[in-house]
């Protein structure tokens, strides 16, 4: 694919994201005619419709885009780092760490003491701590070591969370809801905290595209090309983890986006990370937008947890693409 064609594709995806975002403003259990939306947005007059649009729907849409971007970016980075097509943003412990952080926040009453912000903050720190532990244990040497340590830490921490949940079952419901992941309580404040982190993380990953490519050739080759493999590996893990931790802190654990978006993007633009990353991020944003729209439209007023929708939407779609493009049956 030539550079020009790629630029065209990227622009097309961006336009699509903007289009679907705008269309999503009309999605919700309160009927607001699409015609009125632009007027409502620009005129500052207070009204219920405007509150719904500006304080409920708009942050939610923005958050869906951000989180889709972030999770897809992190997933792409981890798949490239571990050379593992099944890697997703949570493969080295971010999700279990976040769950532990959230559990501790709920059980220790920090939330009651420090306000609603305590939960996301704990989740964020928990995710970082877990990945940090994995990094120390797994040794900075090899990606395989990281993967194995990630599996071990995830299992142990996850069991710890389950144990705490059982012993303190009055908070079970709250935690469960949070774990399932959802964009219902999106707020501008959340976006204020999370957006810079996700933006910084994704941009860093894009900047590190070429080292990510080189690392795939093995540490020796990377070193012979002038890259210090362990240093760049750390940088990539750090950027991806901050992104994932921010995403989880804002909306719980939303699966599948980070796994699927890179694969679809790879089918479109190939494996070179400088192209793969932005494509994957935009696809992730698109997927999460559509999934969230479906999540709140399918059975109003109930909201289906968005993870379920991403899997239901994404899975068959991805299988369809896979069959169409790789008749030899090899994994991309």
């Amino acid at each position, binding site marked *: *694919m030539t550079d020009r064609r790629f630029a065209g594709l990227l622009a097309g995806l961006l336009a699509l994201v903007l289009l679907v975002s705008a269309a999503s403003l009309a999605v919700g259990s309160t009927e607001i005619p699409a015609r009125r939306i632009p007027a409502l947005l620009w005129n500052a007059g207070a009204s219920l419709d405007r509150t719904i649009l500006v304080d409920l729907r708009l942050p939610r849409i923005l958050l869906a885009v951000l989180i889709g971007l972030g999770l897809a970016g992190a997933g792409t980075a981890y798949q490239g780092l571990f050379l593992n097509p099944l890697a997703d943003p949570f493969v080295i412990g971010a999700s279990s760490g976040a769950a532990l952080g959230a559990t501790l926040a709920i059980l220790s009453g920090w939330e009651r003491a420090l306000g609603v912000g305590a939960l996301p903050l704990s989740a964020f720190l928990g995710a970082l701590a877990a990945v940090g532990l994995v990094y120390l244990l797994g040794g900075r040497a090899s990606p395989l070591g990281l993967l194995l340590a990630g599996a071990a830490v995830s299992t142990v921490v996850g069991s710890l969370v389950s144990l705490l949940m059982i012993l303190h079952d009055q908070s079970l419901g709250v935690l469960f809801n949070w774990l399932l992941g959802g964009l219902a309580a999106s707020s501008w404040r959340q976006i204020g905290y999370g957006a810079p982190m996700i933006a910084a993380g994704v941009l860093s990953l894009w900047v590190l595209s070429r080292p990510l490519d080189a690392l795939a050739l093995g540490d020796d080759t990377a070193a012979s090309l002038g890259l210090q493999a362990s240093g760049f590996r750390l940088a990539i893990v750090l950027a991806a983890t901050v992104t994932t931790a921010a995403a989880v802190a804002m909306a719980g654990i939303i699966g599948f986006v980070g796994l699927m978006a890179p694969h679809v993007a790879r089918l479109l633009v190939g494996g070179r990370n400088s192209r793969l990353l932005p494509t994957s991020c935009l696809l992730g944003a698109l997927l999460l937008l559509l999934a969230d729209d479906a999540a709140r439209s399918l059975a109003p007023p109930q909201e289906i947890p968005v993870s379920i929708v991403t899997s239901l939407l994404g899975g068959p779609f991805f299988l369809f693409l896979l069959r169409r493009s790789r008749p030899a049956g090899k994994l991309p």
Partner: protein
Amino acid sequence: MSGATRGPGRSLLWALAGLLTLAALFASLGGSARAAPTAGTSLPRLVSLAPSLTEMLFALDAGDALVGVTRYCDFPPAAKRLPRVGGIEDGSIDFERVLGRKPDLVIAIGEGQERTVSALRRLGQRVEVVPSQTVDDVFRAIPRLGDLVGRRAAAERLLADLQGRFERVRRAISKVPPERRPRVFYELWDQPLMTATRSTLIGGLIERAGGRNIFGDLGGRYPQVSPEAVLARDPQVIVAPDHHGGPIDARTLVERSGLAGVEAARRGRILIVEGNVVSRAGPRIADVLELLAHELHPDLVPAPAGGGARR
């Protein structure tokens, strides 16, 4: 150009076009009636986020003030006709619907609704949190609700009535020493076997009805227990809610849980109660109390008037 980039390119475009159509479809889905019938002029427009609160409001003769309730609000029957705004937990409550009802006041129970409460408040909606988990919560909630809706007199009457009934039961069983109070096992669920401790509503009611909850001392609220533990503590009465995943009768319950050996099973002292009532900290807790007390001390407490919550 390698085949890998051409093949899915076109099908992807088609698929994305399809998705876009779907998105447009979603945009046209949903949407509930916006204009709401005005409530009585003296009553504020209320949205209740819990069935217990709904019941209390109806008991205060403020049912007309409600313009939105949860989908679990089914008592009294008039509540079933009210517009639904969602479930009772964070994530299942639709903010747009809540706001769309244009309430003057949203009343929440708080627990499990923290995110919803803070989000609604951030959007400028007045929200009052009225906990209702225990018996004492109910006694505190009723006057508070009375103040919030301007039904203070009704609240005082209701409170007096409920407290009176509680007091009568208390006096009736006061002479029974603790060791003579029947051992009670509350079976919340059979697989896994779960019970309720003293810190729950039903746990509190069992104690006030003159029973000894065999697992009252455990930590948590609805812990899992083993059948051996139940057999070891040999309850004399088993109480169970009727929503065990399907209609249930005493015999099936005992068989499924493997409790055939306990005294309660041998003597047939198994009480099935209406699940919704025993888990709602609302005005009907007095009914439950009287039912339990009569079952535990038939000679001291008369059978409740309307059959109560027995099933």
